[in-house]
């Protein structure tokens, strides 16, 4: 069930160009079904090291080089994916590194490697071929040496030496529960090969890399996108859906409090409110939004779970306090009611993300002529006369009465919620300003509108559906 793509690392929307005019890539094959078919072609050819796959035309181009080859350059190219053989681009080794095809050319003591084509200063019997991958003076392991890739050195007194390239297992360790692990191990603890995150076979799953851009779901490497105890992956074994990976812990014998910044919550710690999704919330709220008391994290009743406090040392799963150990939407807890397994603690207020107001306005602020020129989030306002990043609907010419000077906050359209401005953030068209209503103002009271209100094309439903359901019941 393994995919041939498992041997490749993907760079999305990327093309690899060779800058030498004399070197030409292979032709584009137009008749392929998918990237897996290209991977099958490339995988079987010793002189194929990478391939381009065009997602819209379903075509591919085999390449005899990688990004580590000389005279090559990566380019952004929408719709074109670059797949490179892992053996050529991985900077660590699997097993004893017999398949390593990287470009390290220095021994562990810092001695430069001798080219495999040269017999001087150290004579040897190796002849470079496509099969053994002996290339330039790069470290290789043609004889399965237990110390990993090695080379003959340019020092006559040291005939050969290991290059000290770390195994992928040891190259990166995990802090906390390994959510930030971005290493290159692609095997589970039992030695099964991982399924690629971007494939849905043999196991279908919700962790599509595009949906989780911050989770590093690259290729088929071990990751922890769901607040599990440690990194894991779906396996290529149809009989076993997912399994943990065996990865070393960083400084595991130090207590959490002194391990250093890597172990701290990614979000800043808060106590009376929560920021973002509340991973940094360390307060003592211990009921759900609905007031149901939380179950203690160290208890397995009424709900069984895997969030044992000792396994989630960085998450501070104390007592029955609301926490977010798994990247949920907000702090949550298991509830003390058998019928409700878990619930969010939305009663905890969000910490404000607004800057303190610098001035105030009367009424709805149509007469505000002050100098505040940033939004409530602190984003600088766009000049009213500017056309980028947003093309304004109100300009000094179109609304002269509003005195749209420079980039000061104004209210040219009588917005009930106060002065505003177009923002300099391309993603936010406009926002309200860092202003408050002046205290001496009487809040406008709610007025009844005219009795007759007409609605068009909305608010109609077919209640027959309900009746059908009742009849079915």
């Amino acid at each position, binding site marked *: 069930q393994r995919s041939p793509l498992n041997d490749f690392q993907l760079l999305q929307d990327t093309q690899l160009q060779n800058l030498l005019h004399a070197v030409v890539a292979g032709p584009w094959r137009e008749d392929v079904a998918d990237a897996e078919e290209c991977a099958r072609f490339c995988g079987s050819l010793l002189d194929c090291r990478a391939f381009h796959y065009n997602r819209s035309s379903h075509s591919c181009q085999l390449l005899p080089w990688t990004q580590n080859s000389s005279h090559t350059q990566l380019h952004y190219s929408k719709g074109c994916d670059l797949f490179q053989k892992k053996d050529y681009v991985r900077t660590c080794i699997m097993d004893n590194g017999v398949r390593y095809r990287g470009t390290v050319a220095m021994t562990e003591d810092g001695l430069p490697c001798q080219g495999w084509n040269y017999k001087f200063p150290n004579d040897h019997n190796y002849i470079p071929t496509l099969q053994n991958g002996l290339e330039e003076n790069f470290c290789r392991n043609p004889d399965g040496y237990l110390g990993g890739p090695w080379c003959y050195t340019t020092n006559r007194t040291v005939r050969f030496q290991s290059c000290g390239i770390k195994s992928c297992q040891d190259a990166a360790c995990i802090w906390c529960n390994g959510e930030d692990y971005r290493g290159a191990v692609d095997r589970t603890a039992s030695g099964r090969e991982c399924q690629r995150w971007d494939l849905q076979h043999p196991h279908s799953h919700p962790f599509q890399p595009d949906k989780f851009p911050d989770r590093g779901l690259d290729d088929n490497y071990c990751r922890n996108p769901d607040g599990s105890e440690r990194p894991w992956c779906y396996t290529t074994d149809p009989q076993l859906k997912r399994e943990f990976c065996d990865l070393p812990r960083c400084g595991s014998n130090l207590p959490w409090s002194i391990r250093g910044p890597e172990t701290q919550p990614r979000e800043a710690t808060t106590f009376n409110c929560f920021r973002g999704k509340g991973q940094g919330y360390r307060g003592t709220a211990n009921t759900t939004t*609905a007031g149901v008391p939380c179950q203690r994290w160290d208890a397995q009743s009424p709900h069984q779970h895997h969030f044992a406090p000792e396994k989630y040392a960085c998450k501070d799963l104390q007592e029955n306090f609301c926490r977010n150990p798994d990247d949920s939407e907000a702090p949550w807890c298991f509830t003390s009611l058998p019928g409700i397994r878990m619930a*969010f603690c*939305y*009663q905890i207020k969000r910490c404000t993300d607004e800057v303190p107001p610098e001035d105030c306005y009367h009424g709805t602020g149509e007469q505000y002529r002050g100098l505040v020129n940033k939004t409530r989030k602190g984003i600088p306002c766009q000049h009213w006369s500017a056309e980028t990043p947003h093309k304004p609907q109100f300009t000094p010419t179109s609304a002269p009465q509003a005195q749209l000077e420079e980039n000061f906050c104004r209210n040219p359209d009588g*917005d009930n919620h106060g002065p505003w401005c177009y923002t300099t953030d391309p993603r*936010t068209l406009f926002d309200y300003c860092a202003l408050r209503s002046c205290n001496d103002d009487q809040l406008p009271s709610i007025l009844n*509108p005219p009795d007759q*209100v007409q609605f068009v*094309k*909305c608010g109609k439903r077919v209640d027959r559906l309900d009746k059908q359901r009742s009849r079915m019941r």
Partner: protein
Amino acid sequence: MVGGQPGNSPWTVSLRNRQSQHFCGGSLVKEQWVLTARQCFSSCSEPLMGYEVWLGTLFQNPRPGEPDLQRVPVTKMVCGPSDSQLVLLKLERSVTLNQRVALICLPPERYVVPPGTKCEIAGWGETKGPSDETVLHVASLNVISNQECNKKYQGQVQESEMCTEGLLVPRGACEGDYGGPLACFTNDCWVLEGIIFPSRVCARPLWPAIFKRVSVFVDWIHKITHME
């Protein structure tokens, strides 16, 4: 939804996180816009990659291939005025309106729903009982005046909020219903008058429920949907 019944509410949408789990409700106010509660989202500027709105189904976990189900990615979130606790979600594309998916009307600006008006809330949230929260539940509630409501809440209810009467047998919103609609029937149409926002408790006996009053922010909704 405590004390509700399985029912139909074609403007009530389910907000889905990156693992396709329901986490809040919302209301379809335009073909490409959904109104919901700010509290449901971690930030006004957080990228919404992977978040979706599901419409056209009565089931919280519809079977794969359910023909009426529409799944539309969220592309943008716009936070409402600071005191609104509302957000508008822009969808990647317009939804298809049909018997299962419909727009809810928006109220006139600053409209006050008369006390006694019959309204409905809908959601897939906790039922706290034998009823099955995997299907959409609807509960009827009658509006009371803010003055009446403030007798119970000692003046804490603001003009930008509205209340429905508290019943002896609890009936109202609960976990998972937040962000969903309070729809009231006016002039032969269902109008979005309130938004369910996280409160301290699920429907309590004799305690009125408090909602965000949409009519106070309807000008902002029109401004956003026209300008963006």
